[in-house]
């Protein structure tokens, strides 16, 4: 159980700057997900907290105490990595007991047995306890690795892409398992991933990392509905938010390249408690952002497009539409009968349009 705070952290590896001016706060008992592409600095951040790296500048605080001088062991954090790194010739039980064995811990045998039993029960691996770890499936091995972290009752769990090596179905079920585990333990989790679905579905809070900086930090809903800039807008969401260049003329969204127009609900919307965007009029170059589920096909709709691709998810279809030179995605019900190269007409939900400044890429609501 711990509160973590990173203040103005910079980290350089030779001439390469991995992190610059990074501020981050993780509340006690929070499931925090650090989301970013390869090379964004996610793993470096995690290793700084674990004490495996030292920051070039800035401070790492755990429960308000600067831990600069603390070694990795003293920080009492548990690491779970993508590679399981279990002892192959040990049984699951021996693997779970191992972190409790060192003499410095001086744990009585009873206590060790009890902790292992409890971890095994939590992770539903009781039936595997006497099996050698090389006889386990990938998902089972990852559960055992997590179990090895749990038995220690660490202050913080640090997880570096623990699900990335597993297949899609297993990932889906371990996602909920991990989340309920965290709720059950009430522990502080820092979870690092490049997968935005993992971030959205598990995080109490998500921090989006780009080029060594936190671009936006907030609840999954905040990040999804009100992305701070076009980077976050296009990174979070699958398919990502549609981004179209254009200008606002007399309350209408006039697109640049393809030359089509759509209505826009007042300058800045102000719907759903969002702050109003300002300064959008006056021919300022803008980027219009609209989520695929807010684009609708209708026979009488204002704009014609050609269906470029149909991605069938069973429950729904994701269409790629082409209008002039622009491409946009629309999520439609599974029953919609559309074929490649068919002309369709579409509209968008004007309430849901997000405006970004063309030059800076910043969401106009965030500027204000």
């Amino acid at each position, binding site marked *: 159980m711990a509160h973590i705070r990173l203040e103005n952290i910079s980290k350089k590896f030779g001439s390469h700057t991995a992190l610059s001016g990074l501020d981050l706060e993780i509340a006690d008992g929070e499931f925090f997900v650090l989301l970013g592409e390869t090379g964004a600095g996610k793993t470096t951040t995690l290793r700084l907290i674990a004490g495996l790296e030292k920051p070039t500048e800035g401070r790492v605080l755990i429960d308000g105490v600067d831990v600069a001088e603390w070694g990795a062991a003293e920080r009492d954090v548990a690491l779970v990595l993508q590679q399981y790194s279990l002892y192959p010739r040990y049984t699951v039980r021996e693997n779970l007991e191992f972190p409790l064995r060192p003499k410095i811990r001086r744990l009585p045998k009873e206590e060790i047995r009890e902790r292992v039993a409890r971890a095994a029960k939590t992770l539903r691996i009781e039936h595997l306890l006497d099996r050698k770890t090389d006889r386990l499936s990938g998902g089972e091995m990852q559960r055992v690795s997590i179990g090895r972290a749990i038995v220690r009752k660490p202050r913080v769990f640090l997880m570096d892409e623990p699900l990335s090596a597993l297949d*899609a*179905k297993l990932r*889906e079920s371990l*996602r*909920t398992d991990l*989340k*309920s585990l965290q*709720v059950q333990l009430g522990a502080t989790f820092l979870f690092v991933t490049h997968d935005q*679905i993992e971030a*959205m*579905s*598990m995080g109490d809070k998500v921090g989006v990392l780009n080029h060594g900086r936190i671009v936006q930090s907030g609840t*999954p*809903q905040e990040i*999804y509905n009100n992305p701070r800039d076009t980077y976050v807008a296009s990174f*979070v*969401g*699958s398919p990502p938010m549609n981004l179209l260049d254009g200008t606002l003329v007399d309350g209408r969204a006039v697109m640049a390249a393809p030359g089509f127009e759509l209505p826009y609900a007042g300058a800045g919307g102000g719907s759903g408690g969002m702050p109003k965007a300002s300064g959008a009029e006056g021919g300022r170059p803008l980027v219009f952002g609209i*989520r*695929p*589920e807010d684009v609708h096909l209708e026979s009488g709709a204002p704009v014609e497009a050609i269906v*470029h*691709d*149909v*991605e*069938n*998810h*069973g*429950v729904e279809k994701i269409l*790629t539409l082409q209008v002039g030179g622009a491409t946009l995605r629309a*999520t439609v019900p*599974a029953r919609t009968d559309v*074929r*490649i*190269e068919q002309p369709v007409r579409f509209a968008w939900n004007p309430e849901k349009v997000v405006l970004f400044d063309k030059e800076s890429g910043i969401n106009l609501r965030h500027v204000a």
Partner: protein
Amino acid sequence: MTQIELRGVQKYFGAVQVIKNLNLAIADNEFIVLLGQSGCGKTTTLRAVAGLETIDEGDILIDGKPVQNLKAADRDIALVFQSFSLYPHMSVYENIAFPLRATRKSKAEIDTEVRSIAATLQITHLLGLKPSALSGGDMQRVAIGRALVRRPKALLMDEPIGALDAKLREEMRAEIKRLHVRQGSTTIYVTHDQIEAMSLADRIVIMHEGVLQQVGTPDEVYSRPANLFVAQFVGSPVMNVSSAMLAGDGGAVSVRVGGHEKGFEFPPALASRLNGHAAGGALVLGIRPEGIVVRHDAAAGFLPVEAQIIEPLGAYDIVDLKVGSAILRARTKSGFVSGAGARVFARVDPEQAHFFDAESGQSLGVSL
């Protein structure tokens, strides 16, 4: 004009039977996707059609003629693999022209055909380049061009876009589909990715452990899975599957899940449609997350349930509902259920419910 038929095909690797009595008829111009996990026999099936593997029993017919004893070269079938296997020292033009060299076509004829296929694939501007200068997607376009240039009877593709990154994979998938719409050659395509299969196929062939599980259009496979394997392999998040008890007293029929004291209401017709399956009332209920209706307030036919983990995925949420000892995952509007612990009311939509035999896992074919 090419029909392909497999009749009673059996294939062993040593003692392991990798294809078990496979029967399949592929119509002219049809796009067939073989879908399954690794090791299910899909690639072996493809290679057997191509002539790269012998079969131990059965017939493979192309346009009604048995070809199982013909060499690969005499079957007039083109293959595209995940690895592009282009000749690195030859230009794109020479790579595409290569299969025509052995034919007795004149230089001018070859030139016309190479340029025509290059135009179809939109790679005319690349003709002078060496493969090393191409991106992954372009290399695969060239490989497809080389496969199609000699106008084979059929095109076989083995995970052709599996090695590309996610964005490029989507683009190439769309292109392969458009190419098929335009060229209309009989195609067999192998993949483990169910979205790829759902998006490309006229009909999907699902295999598991060498046994064909179901052949059907994407819609059939999704909406009427033949057995539990197909039900849980296609669709994400996976279909909820739970053992259930049928309870009925005269008029009303209900299906109890997870030992809950009350059951989900079903039309009385269910009892007769089950045709005496469900011995002692035991059966397996399958319901996709979108087939569970969730409300905030009580209503006839709705059971009070508790929400547990909620996965906000942006466009919608996946909510775990505790029904007795079972968890059913429901798809709701984003933010519909406030949080873990919330009391809501749920119903299983009878039209979207699936029933399977508890022993064999086969669908009972009930549709209400």
